[in-house]
């Protein structure tokens, strides 16, 4: 039991290490200095308070996107639509943020709830189609991503601005930005969203592991037939799982809209946060606590990567390769498990 848990912890750690080793080989082969590259990466992620602030800021939406993917995964669904749910959540949060003028205690929660509701609605559609007509959620959620992107672009142009490419800034009362956090991190874009993301992780853990509803959701995720036998309403649980997953994704969008940017602009393409969420969830073993750690790693890689071109002349594309290699090794965790068990056996 405990040895199992240890393996579960060690596998992602080894995956990351192997990914970094493979990344340094790629750097060496391409004629770059991996030590300079990784020192730049680490400096760019944790070098001083500013960089730490940026890393935490980048971690925030990753946590929530990872939770969204993991929640669906734990209930037997593959939500590829986190990206789209994130975009509509972002849109809804900004919409509420610019359209109303309310006291902060009402306005901020309202904007976040609107984001959650928008993400939930976006996920409800594939959930409903899956539950009612057995349409595979992967296909629908992928398509819904494109719909989200273009619908939100249209709304920004026609409703949130006068044919412009971005909305107005949200009112201060709906903002997650914090002078205090910015000042202690030397004017990074760090905002209060990280607290919401951490609360989100606790909520997911509590909901799935401690509540009656969570029991049902997990049961349906593992075995629909047994759940039906047990008297659970399988279609309703599928929809609910998608809706909750979408709500997490929507809140991830609120982090960008109410925290990092304070507005929303027309997007030529996806933000990528939703897709990275899949990797975050995978690396975090779909476990709320694991997701916090893996989101932090992804945030650090993303932010630290920006330092690599200027300090070590390593192109940012290479960092994407390193991330891809890490995901590759996580996905092939079977290999690592095998190596670990060999290792342990010989140690005995």
């Amino acid at each position: 039991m405990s040895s199992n848990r240890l393996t579960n912890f060690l596998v992602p750690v080894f995956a990351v290490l192997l990914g970094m080793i493979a990344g340094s080989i790629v750097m060496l082969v391409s004629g770059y200095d991996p030590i300079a590259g990784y020192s730049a990466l680490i400096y760019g992620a944790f070098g001083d308070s500013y960089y730490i602030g940026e890393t935490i800021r980048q971690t925030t939406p990753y946590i929530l996107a990872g939770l969204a993917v993991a929640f669906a995964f734990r209930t037997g669904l593959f939500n590829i639509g986190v990206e789209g749910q994130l975009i509509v959540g972002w849109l809804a949060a900004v919409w509420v943020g610019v359209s109303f003028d309310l006291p902060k205690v009402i306005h901020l929660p309202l904007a976040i709830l609107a984001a959650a509701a928008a993400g939930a609605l976006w996920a409800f559609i594939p959930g409903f189609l899956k539950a009612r007509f057995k349409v595979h959620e992967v296909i629908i959620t992928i398509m819904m991503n494109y719909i989200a992107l273009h619908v939100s672009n249209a709304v920004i142009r026609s409703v949130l601005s006068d044919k412009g490419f971005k909305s107005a800034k949200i009112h201060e009362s709906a903002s997650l930005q914090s002078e205090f956090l910015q000042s202690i991190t030397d004017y990074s874009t760090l905002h209060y969203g990280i607290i919401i993301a951490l609360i989100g992780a606790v909520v997911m853990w509590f909901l799935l592991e401690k509540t009656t509803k969570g029991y049902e959701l997990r049961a349906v995720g593992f075995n629909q037939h047994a759940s039906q036998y047990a008297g659970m309403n399988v279609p309703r649980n599928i929809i609910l799982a998608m809706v909750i997953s979408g709500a997490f994704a929507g809140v991830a969008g609120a982090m960008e809209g109410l925290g990092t940017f304070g507005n929303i602009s027309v997007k030529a393409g996806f933000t990528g946060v939703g897709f990275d969420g899949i990797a975050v969830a995978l690396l975090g073993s779909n476990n709320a606590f694991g997701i916090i750690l893996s989101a932090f790693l992804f945030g650090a890689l993303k932010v630290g990567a920006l330092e690599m071109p200027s300090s070590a002349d390593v192109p940012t594309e290479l960092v994407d390769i390193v991330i891809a290699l890490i995901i590759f090794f996580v996905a092939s965790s079977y290999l690592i498990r095998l190596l670990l068990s060999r290792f342990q056996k010989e140690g005995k």
Partner: protein
Amino acid sequence: MEYVIEMLNIRKVFGNFVANDNITLQVKKGEIHALLGENGAGKSTLMNVLFGLYQPDGGEIRVKGQPVKIANPNVANDLGIGMVHQHFMLVDTFTVTENIILGSEPTKAGKMDIARAEAEVRELSERYGLAVDPTAKISDISVGMQQRVEILKTLYRGADILIFDEPTAVLTPQEIQELIQIMRALVREGKSIILITHKLKEIMEVCDRVTVIRRGKGIGTLNVAETNPNELAALMVGREVHFKTDKKPAQPGKEVLEIQDLVVKDARGVTVVDHLNLTVRAGEIVGIAGVDGNGQTELVEAITGLMKAESGSIKLNGKDIFNLPPRKITEAGIGHIPQDRHKHGLVLDFPIGENMVLQTYYQEPYSKRGILNFKAIYEKARQLIAEFDVRTPDEYTQARALSGGNQQKAIIGREVDRNPDLLIAAQPTRGLDVGAIEFIHKRLIEQRDQGKAVLLVSFELDEVMNVSDRIAVIYEGKIVAIVDPKETTEQELGLLMAGSKQKEAGVSS
């Protein structure tokens, strides 16, 4: 005396659990040697050690007198040990030959030499009387034939010692007879066979010697000619086993389940339950006898709400439960031991403890204001595990990790504990060993004696005749006869089940 295989004092430990505790197994050349034990006794572990899938923590393995270390299945293959798995490992879309050569394809100038392989397979098949067509696709041949392909796979790789893992579990009686002929032919040709089983009948019929293990310990090796089923059963279970279940005469009371004119159609719209009438009373066990596929599954699923019925009426204690959602039906007082325990009975990835409240998790004390009360859940689980002798390391172990018999005991414990007025047991002993079967039969009769109505569905005639107070024969979705087990014979039932004879016994239908 020449032994081809000697496993001496083999010990294998998983964590704190001793799966094999100094077991010794010696197989002579040219014999069929049975390895007998209950589910979970350690048979599979022992064979996996021999096949190189596990490394023993102690003991010695000798093949043809030479001490060997079997690090992986490839080493086992090289030593001439082949395994015919219970669950076939075949690629459905490949031909027989392609499956057999998979992993050791003969090549000619870098290209696969299919023609040569086919000739070799055909030759092997003829020598051992397997009658397998080397060019047939796996998806087109019967389960029995697929098993022969598995046998050919081991022979093709030059196996002298064949391990058969519960080979008859998936076969029809006819196919079992054919398999026995094949095993005899193999032995005649000088092969040696280890047969893993818990079916005493087969051992008596085909084996030369038998090694019995119980709870990880070797009990001993006997000559089959010098023993009998009762002795073997007692050795295996560790106590006397009664094949005939003792029971008092039934004292039927009021009608608990009343089914009238029930019609059920399957997903393709075919009528599978056809205007069926059936009554089960308190204090009796009604057995449904029939060949698989005559509407038994759909009947049970319609009663329990897992499947929507077309028309008719189903009443429980006079209350209409026709096409209600499963939860309402469960709450109305039906317990259901499902036919497929992996599909319906358990969430295999949940701890066994959480499986114990699968229908009641939302009720107090297991859940309060939407929050689970794990203390209450696991307390209940511990109680049922103890009461129904579910062998598991602890209540937090995944249900998946339990043996089939223990999974079934857990389900029965859960269903009986809810104290339902009607207990439906569909194939409750499928795949279980004698000890577990006896236990389950006892529990069903106990329920009857407490005044519950029990509906037993089984494809095993022995079981139906042994346990039921009345037998309802189902054929093509209709109850074609209701007979008294004391007044009927297997022959008569067999004819009824085949639809060749109709009989209305004097019981209301």
